[in-house]
């Protein structure tokens, strides 16, 4: 299986004395698609930023391993973070050395062929996230980190983007960690769902339903109910503390 494996050992993170994550142990196998769900403020994004290396953990150790080379990690943010002064092509080629010929193929793959020379200002929210996805994928990352990338999109665009992501991963498998607040999205896409709560991993669920999955699948629906219940109790707990 291609992709990087990830291992976290008693990882903790505090901001100005407030503990966000505490003693997180986690192993992600190469090629696995893991979703992280949890109530807002539970530390999902913090966990992702630690794995991305954008922040350093306060405690513990994080290791990324890819076969034969240093693991290449790309992060896709909730906001597209496109550079408005660069064209679609210019944005996709950000930080690319060599391999510039791949841009056309990637833009084809995300359905933006023919839009290369446009500036982001003229693109819709879904198209902008497609560019952001192409920008992450052109590096052929071993580990793709997605921080609620479709959270700001409308339902139809979101479904289209989920489908696109799944297709792209079938074509070129890699390890993916997706932070989402959408339980259904997590169950549609991932091999494994983590529920983060109180600074730690409260549930770790392997979900090996065959793909492509459907929202109406009874197994998916049952799990969705169960996870939503878990999330609701977590939200209630948080509210009680606050």
């Amino acid at each position: 299986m291609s992709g990087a494996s990830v291992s976290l050992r008693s990882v903790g993170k505090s901001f100005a004395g407030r503990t966000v994550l505490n003693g997180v142990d986690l192993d992600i196998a190469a090629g696995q698609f893991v979703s992280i769900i949890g109530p807002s403020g539970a530390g999902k994004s913090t966990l992702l930023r630690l794995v991305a290396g954008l922040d350093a953990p306060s405690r513990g150790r994080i290791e990324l391993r890819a076969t034969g080379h240093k693991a290449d990690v790309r992060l896709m943010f909730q906001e597209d973070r496109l550079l408005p002064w660069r064209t679609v092509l210019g944005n996709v080629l950000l930080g690319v050395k060599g391999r510039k010929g791949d841009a056309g193929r990637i833009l084809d793959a995300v359905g933006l062929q023919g839009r290369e020379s446009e500036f982001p200002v003229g693109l819709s929210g879904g198209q902008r996230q497609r560019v952001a996805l192409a920008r992450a994928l052109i590096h052929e990352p071993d580990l793709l980190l997605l921080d609620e990338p479709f959270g700001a999109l409308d339902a139809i665009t979101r479904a289209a983007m989920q489908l696109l992501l799944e297709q792209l991963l079938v074509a070129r498998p890699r390890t993916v960690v997706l932070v989402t607040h959408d339980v259904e999205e997590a169950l549609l896409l991932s091999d494994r769902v983590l529920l983060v709560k109180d600074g730690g991993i409260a549930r770790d669920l392997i979900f090996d339903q065959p793909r492509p999955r459907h929202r109406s699948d009874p197994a998916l629906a049952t799990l969705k109910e169960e996870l939503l219940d878990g999330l609701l109790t977590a939200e209630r707990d948080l509210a009680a503390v606050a």
Partner: protein
Amino acid sequence: MTVVADVSRLSKAAGLHQRGLAWRSVVLPWFLPLGLLLVWQFLSATGIVSTAIVPAPSDIWDAARQLAKRGELQHDILVSLRRVAIGFSIGALSGLLFGLAVGLFELLHDLFDRSLQMIRTIPHLALVPLMILWFGIGEEPRLILVAMGSLFPVYINTVGGIRNVDPKLIELGRSYGLGRAELVWSIILPAALQPILVGMRYALGVAWLTLVVGETIASRDGVGYLVQNARELLRIDIIVLAIILYAIAGWLSDLVTRLIERRLLRWHPSYADRVKA
């Protein structure tokens, strides 16, 4: 079946609307100045306003033609333009360089910013007597004053622009493996471009203002000298002519900077639509 809207007719209407807009943005701005000119001419011609206080537009036109015939007008305009061009270039370029250095390097910021901010608060026109004592009445004091006037608006906007770059974009650049130089070139400079251009436009205004004062004091040519000379000869028509020349110069330089802005910032939401149209 009910037709909700006839699309072909709608789009025709939109085209008309756009042509109407183009007409509006080209012609309408001239409405007020030309109207005022007509009213002014009327008031002077009927004697409601004495031409001894404000000469009629036709008198000013005559004065301009006389001066042009002798070659004085062209010469003075060119001299003033040259002074603004040189002074502004030196000032804006130094402001840009200082701004980039101070904005990009924390060490240089700590070293220079306080001092530059202190110098900035001195009204540069207060230095006129000192400049004349030091440099006499040649070209230097005027050029230095214009340069000083143009430096600080560019400096402040450059530093501000660089320091206000969205940290999320910088984080993006870092996580995509950009080195320091690439980060500056691909993210920081383009993001700071708009405030820098605003500073340049403002600086150009200050440059003209400074030149007016600089040329009024002990000069032998330039539009300011024209005014000075006319005051001694009690030629109000020439004084008003010079004021109009300054207005035209200001408008033209603003136009040029706007065009440059529109070209450089064509990706910007505020400019994108106008470029497409």
